[in-house]
């Protein structure tokens, strides 16, 4: 991580005495001194962090403090100043950052409460959970760095590509597999789609062209299908209409034909067959 510029060009900052931010009902008219970062850099600054734990670790490490030894009040003040400042500057802030601010404030207030005299009612130090999380996160942050330093295929390591021996069989050997492979792949896609709440898919209208192909595909193997089987009720009115239009158009183009044995008998649809 790059060290941030902490110069304080006062003239840039304080063209008026307007409050920059409000922290605990206290208006900040001056950007906290050791915090000042130009607004543009602030956005970059925030992007440099992987989340509130990362930002907190940075604040702690910057002061050469041990995680076990955090001066909660001071760190909380710094952290909240950052957050307020970023909000003030309309920098998009993930909800997690705000949650952490609330947590810090809570820890701070609990630390300020007088200790109960009764030692049996001893509570866990309110900082313990936060410290545990910070420590845990820091381990994995370090592990990620170690992982990133390992030689990587395609970046540091290049594999060899050697053509197999010439052999007619290889060229003609067909792929043998069954559909379960594909099905599994699709299941994975769907499973992940479920897993991933934020997947964005544009609404796709029902296209007539697509329906043509679907109807034709359905009949491609030469089978005869009962007319109503071509409709999917779930698609609602629009779906039914599109399918019907597709059938009409395909009939017109002589790509399919309808067969009915007698009046009121079921209507069958099949691929158009040229009469001999």
């Amino acid at each position, binding site marked *: 991580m790059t060290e941030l510029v902490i110069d304080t060009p006062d003239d840039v900052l304080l063209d008026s005495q307007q409050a920059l931010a409000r922290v605990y009902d206290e208006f900040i008219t001056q950007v906290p001194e050791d915090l000042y970062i130009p607004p543009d850099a602030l956005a970059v600054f925030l992007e440099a962090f992987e989340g509130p734990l990362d930002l907190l670790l940075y604040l702690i490490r910057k002061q050469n403090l041990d995680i076990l030894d955090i001066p909660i009040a001071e760190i909380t003040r710094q952290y909240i100043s950052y957050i307020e400042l970023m909000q003030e500057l309309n920098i998009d802030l993930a909800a997690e950052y705000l949650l952490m601010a609330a947590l810090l404030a809570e820890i701070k207030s609990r630390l300020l409460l007088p200790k109960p005299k009764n030692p049996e009612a001893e509570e866990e130090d309110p900082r313990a959970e936060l410290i545990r999380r910070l420590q845990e996160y820091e381990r994995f942050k370090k592990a990620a760095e170690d992982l990133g330093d390992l030689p990587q295929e395609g970046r540091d390591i290049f*594999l060899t590509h050697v053509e197999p021996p010439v052999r007619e069989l290889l060229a003609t050997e067909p792929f043998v597999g069954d559909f379960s492979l594909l099905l599994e792949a699709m299941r994975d896609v769907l499973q992940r789609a479920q897993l991933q709440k934020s997947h964005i898919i544009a609404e796709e209208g029902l296209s007539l062209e697509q329906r043509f192909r679907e109807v034709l595909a359905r009949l491609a193997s030469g089978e005869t299908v009962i007319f109503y089987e071509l409709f999917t009720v779930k698609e609602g009115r629009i779906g039914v209409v599109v399918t019907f239009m597709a059938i009409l158009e395909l009939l017109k183009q002589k790509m399919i034909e309808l067969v009915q044995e007698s009046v009121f008998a079921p209507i069958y649809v099949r691929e158009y067959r040229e009469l001999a």
Partner: protein
Amino acid sequence: MKLSQSLLKNILESAIFASPSPLSVEELLSLFADEEKPTRQQIQTLIKELQNDYATRPLEVVEVASGYRFQVRAKFSPWISKMWQDKPPKLSRAMLETLAIIAYRQPVTRAEIEAIRGVVVSTQIIKALFDRDWIVVVGHREVPGRPALLATTREFLDAFSLKGLADLPPLAALRDLDTIEAELATTNRVEKE
């Protein structure tokens, strides 16, 4: 700085090994910075030397239309071919997923596949599917750029032992795609990496 002949030869050898496709003299030249660049003549001489070095090895340096590559000598094919006999070529997950989406959603554009998978579909995958004759372009979507509409072929059906597209197991058995999409649309939120 000029590179020594032996370093030069080692670089050429490694490059031909590392390249997934044959390398031409031009391409080999492009690996070197201006001040270390050998001549075409030098490269050709060194490759000749390499070919001699490998004369007694199980591999050989062969020249094909697009350049040089290493190839296992034909005499080892009885053993090497077993690698392909026992198990069908393994298709990558990315390829299978792309294929599955084309099969179920055809005709479909590449952008639509990417929207469903949420990741860029590599050109290699699409090319590999074309190479196996598993997909074809059946038209173009009438939107800006006229993207190609992809669909599966009879060869695809054969490869997966399907009689027709109607044989595709209904997605509903897994879970209806449209339902999922609807759900996704509602939970859709902006997320950044």
